[in-house]
C-alpha cells in the first residue's frame, strides 16, 4: 500500500462527529486551559509549574473519592453522600491517635479500616435491607459529621508526625527526592544556568532546580502507556476490530504528550509529589478492576439491567455491597490525604467533597442511570473541575461566582451527554 493511500484511508476513517462526541470533555479541557492561559494580564500563569503541581495536590481527594463514586454510580446512578463526613471522621480518629503517640502505620491502617467498615455498614443497609442509597448515605453524612465533632471535641487536631506528612502531605518534603542528580556529580553539574542548551530547553528560572528523577518517571510512564496502547491496537487489528483507529492514535499521542508535559512542569517545581503516587495507584487499580475483572463487569451489568444480571446468576445485592464498602475504603484514604495536606484535621473538613466527586463522574460521562462511565472519563472530569477552580482563582473571579460557574459547567456537561445519546437513537 502506498503512503498516499494509507493517508487517504486514515482520513476516511476519521469521522469528526464521532470524534467530537467521544472526546468532548478532553476538547473542553484543552479549550478551558487555553482560555485561562491566554487571559489578559494573567498570561500563562495557570501553566506555571507551581500551579500545575498545586492542581494535583489540591485535587487528590477528588480523584480518590470520584473513583469510588464512579463505582456506585455505575450500579444504577446511586451516589454516596456520606463520603465527606467519612473523610473527616476517619481523619479525625487517625489524627487523635497520632497525637496520642500511636505509630503512624497503625493510624493509617485504622483510618482505612474505619472507612471500609463504615462503607460496609452503609452497604449492608443499601444492599440487604434495600434502604435507598440516597437516604442511607444521607443518614451517614449527618451521623459521621457528628461523630467527627465528638472525636475532635469541636477543635482542630494537628499532626506532627514528619513521616506521615512526608508520605501523604503537601509540604516541601512530600516529593520523591531527585536520586539521579544526587548520585551523579557530572549530571548534577550539567544543570546550571551556564549550560546554554539545557537553559534553552527548560528555561532560565528552572534549570538549576530541575528534578531529573521526576522527568524520567514521566518519560518511562509515557513510554509504557504508548506501548500498552500500541499492543492493544495491534491485537484488535489482528482480531479485526479496528474501530476508530485514527481517534485512538490521536488520543494516545495527546495523552502521552500530556503526561510528558505534566512531568516536565512537575520537574521544574519540586518534582514528583508523593500524593501523585497514591492517586496513580488508585486510578490504575480501579481502571483495571472496572475494565478487566468479573466484579467490574458486574458493576456495569447491574447498572445496565439489574434483572437481566440477576437472571444471569450474578448476586446483584453483593455488587451493591461491594460498591459501597469500596467507596468507604477510598474515603478512608481520602481522609489520610486530606489530613496530610492540612497537617491536621478540623471538624468541618470534607464538607462538600461528595459533591465534587459526583460532579467529576457526571462531567466525565458517567450516566446518571448507571451502566456507563469509565475511570478515564472521570479523570478528565476531575481535572476539568480542578482547572476551572484554579483558573478562576488565578484570574480573580469572586468566590461566590466560582460556584455559579461550577454549576453551569456541570449542567452543560450532562446536557451534552444527554443530547449526544439522543441523537444516536
Amino acid at each position: 500500500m502506498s503512503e498516499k493511500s494509507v493517508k487517504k484511508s486514515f482520513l476516511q476513517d476519521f469521522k469528526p462527529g464521532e470524534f467530537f462526541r467521544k472526546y468532548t470533555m478532553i476538547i473542553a479541557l484543552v479549550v478551558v486551559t487555553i482560555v485561562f492561559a491566554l487571559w489578559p494580564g494573567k498570561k500563562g500563569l495557570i501553566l506555571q509549574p507551581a500551579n500545575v503541581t498545586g492542581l494535583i495536590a489540591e485535587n487528590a481527594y477528588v480523584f480518590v473519592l470520584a473513583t469510588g463514586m464512579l463505582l456506585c454510580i455505575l450500579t444504577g446512578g446511586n451516589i454516596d453522600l456520606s463520603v465527606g463526613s467519612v473523610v473527616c471522621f476517619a481523619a479525625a480518629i487517625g489524627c487523635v491517635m497520632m497525637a496520642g503517640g500511636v505509630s503512624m502505620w497503625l493510624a493509617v491502617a485504622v483510618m482505612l479500616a474505619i472507612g471500609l467498615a463504615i462503607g460496609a455498614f452503609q452497604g449492608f443497609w443499601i444492599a440487604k435491607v434495600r434502604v435507598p442509597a440516597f437516604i442511607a448515605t444521607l443518614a451517614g453524612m449527618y451521623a459521621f459529621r457528628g461523630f467527627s465533632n465528638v472525636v475532635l471535641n469541636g477543635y482542630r487536631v494537628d499532626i506532627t508526625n514528619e513521616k506521615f506528612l512526608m508520605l501523604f502531605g503537601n509540604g516541601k518534603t512530600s516529593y520523591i527526592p531527585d536520586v539521579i542528580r544526587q548520585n551523579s556529580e557530572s549530571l548534577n553539574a550539567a544543570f546550571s544556568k551556564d549550560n546554554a542548551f539545557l537553559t534553552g530547553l527548560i528555561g532560565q528560572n528552572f534549570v538549576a532546580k530541575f528534578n531529573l528523577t521526576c522527568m524520567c518517571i514521566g518519560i518511562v510512564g509515557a513510554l509504557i502507556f504508548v506501548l500498552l496502547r500500541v499492543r492493544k491496537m495491534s491485537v484488535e487489528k489482528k482480531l479485526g476490530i479496528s474501530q476508530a483507529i485514527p481517534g485512538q492514535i490521536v488520543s494516545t499521542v495527546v495523552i502521552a504528550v500530556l503526561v510528558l508535559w505534566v512531568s516536565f512542569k512537575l520537574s521544574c517545581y519540586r518534582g514528583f509529589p508523593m500524593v501523585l503516587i497514591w492517586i496513580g495507584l488508585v486510578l490504575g487499580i480501579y481502571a483495571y478492576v472496572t475494565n478487566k475483572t468479573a466484579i467490574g463487569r458486574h458493576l456495569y451489568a447491574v447498572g445496565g439491567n439489574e434483572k437481566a444480571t440477576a437472571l444471569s446468576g450474578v448476586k446483584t445485592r453483593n455488587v451493591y455491597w461491594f460498591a459501597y464498602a469500596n467507596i468507604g475504603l477510598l474515603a478512608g484514604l481520602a481522609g489520610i490525604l486530606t489530613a496530610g495536606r492540612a497537617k491536621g484535621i478540623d471538624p468541618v473538613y470534607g464538607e462538600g467533597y461528595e459533591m465534587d466527586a459526583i460532579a467529576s463522574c457526571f462531567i466525565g460521562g458517567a450516566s446518571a442511570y448507571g451502566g456507563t462511565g469509565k475511570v478515564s472519563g472521570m479523570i478528565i472530569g476531575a481535572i476539568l473541575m480542578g482547572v476551572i477552580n484554579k483558573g478562576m482563582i488565578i484570574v480573580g473571579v469572586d468566590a461566590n461566582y466560582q460556584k455559579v460557574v461550577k454549576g453551569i459547567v456541570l449542567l452543560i456537561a450532562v446536557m451534552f451527554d444527554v443530547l449526544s445519546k439522543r441523537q444516536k437513537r
Partner: protein
Amino acid sequence: MAKILLEMKNITKTFPGVKALDNVNLQVEEGEIHALVGENGAGKSTLMNVLSGIYPYGTYEGDIIYNGQVCKFSNIKDSEKLGIVIIHQELALVPEMTIGENMYLGNERGHSFAINWNQTYAEADKYLKMVGLEESSKIQVKTIGTGKQQLVEIAKALAKKAKLLILDEPTSSLNEEDSRALLDLMLSFKKQGMTMIIISHKLNEVSYVADKITVIRDGSTIETIDNQGKEPVSEERIIKGMVGREITNRFPKRENVKIGPVRMEVDHWTVHHPLYPERKVVDDVSMYVRQGEVVGIYGLMGAGRTELAMSIFGQSYGVNFSGELKLDGKHIKLRKSEADAIKHKIAYVTEDRKGNGLVLSQSIKVNTSLANLGAISKNTVIDGDKEYAVAEEYRDKLKIKTPSVEQLVGNLSGGNQQKVLLAKWMFAEPDILLLDEPTRGIDVGAKYEIYCIINDLAAAGKCVVLISSELPEVLGMSDRIYIMNEAKIIGEMKASEATQENIMAAILRSGRGA
C-alpha cells in the same frame, strides 16, 4: 339498521421492520358490543391504540370516522373528549391513592389549583354505584381486590362521559365469578345505549356478550361474525377464523431425532404469587423432559408458563415453593439462587429480552459472556482476547448480523438481540434450556433461524422446553406438548396427535369446568 358510530377504514400501521396492521377495517354500530379476537400479536391492541390516539394521527394510514366525522387524534385526551375511553389490560390505578383520586386523576374536579374534593367524592360515589360497587370512594385502591379494581376502572371511564368504551382483556385477571359479573354489567350498559368494544382471548365470554365478532389475524381483518342469532356462535367457529392460516414450511425439519432418557423432572410443583401469596401462579404441575427432546408448553398469556419456567430456574420468580425437582433422577435441593440453577446446567431464556435478558447499554461481547464469566477469566480477571474469540464464535454460529461484536446490543434489531440472548445462554453450556417465547416480536426470517438453532440444540442432546403462545410454533417445533391454563397443566399430547383445534378445545373445556 342502527347508526354506525365508529368506522375505521383501511388502517395500516407500520413499526420499524414490522407491519402491525395491514388495511384493517372495523365498523361498530351504536349500542352494540363488538368483540375483537385474534392470537397474541395479531394487532388487536395496536388497533385500539390507534383509535384512542396513543399512536397519533399521522403515524398510521387510513381514516377513523366517529359519529360521521373524520377524527385526527393527537393524544388520548382528544379521543376522550369525544367519549372514546379505553381500559387497558393492566390496571392503571395508583394503589396508594383513594378510589376517588384515581377516578379523576388527570381530570380533576374544580379548579386545577384548588381541587373540589367534595364534588370529586360525591361524583365518584355516584359512578361507583352504577358499576355496582358499595365501597366509599374515599378508601385506598390497594385495599380492594382485583375484581373490584376492574370495576373502578370502568367507573373511571364512565366518569369521563364515555360513549364508546373499549375494554382490553377486562377479565384476564379476574376469577370466574367476577368475570361473569363484569360481563353482565356490560350487558346492562348496552341496554342503556352504551357502545362497547371488547378484546378478549376467552371465547366463551365473547360469544356470551358480543353482538358482532371481528377476527384479526396477522394484522388484517379476516371476517366479522354476526352473533345476534338465536344460537350463540360456536367457539369452534371463531377458532377457525383465528387460526385458519396455511402453514407451509415455516418450520425447519428436525433431523437426527434421538430421544434419550429423562433428564429433568418436576413433580407437584406449586408456586405462589410474590405479591399475593395466597394466589397460585403454578398449581401442582408435573412434567418431564428427555434428552434431545423439544417439549412445547402452550398456553395463553397469564396461564403460568413463564412463572413455571422461572421458578424452575433457581426460584427466580414466586414465593412458597413446593414440589420436587429431579435432574437425571436425582433429587435437587431447592435454593433461591440463579447461580445454583446455572451450576445445575439449567438455562432460562427470558421472554422479555429487553427487560430481563440483555444489558442494552453494553456490547454483544459483554452480553455473551455475562452468564459464564468464569469460563473466560482466571482468578476473576477477564481474558479479553478469549472473550472476544467466544463472542466471535457465537456470532458466526448464530449468524448474528453486526459489523462487530463490540456493537452495543441496544442498537441491534429484535431478531439479532434474541440471537445474542441465545448466544449468552448457549455459552453458559446448559443441558436444559427453558426458552420462553424465543420468537416474540421478530420477523419471519429470524424466526426460522431461531427454529434451526433450537433443532441443532436438540440434535446435540440438549433438552429444550419451548414456551410459546403461538400455536403453530408449538405444533411445528415440539416432540411433545404440554398445555397450560390457569396455572395448571391441563393436557399432554404427542406432536403427532396435536392439532390447533384440539388444543384450543382442551383450553376451553378446562376454562368452562373451572
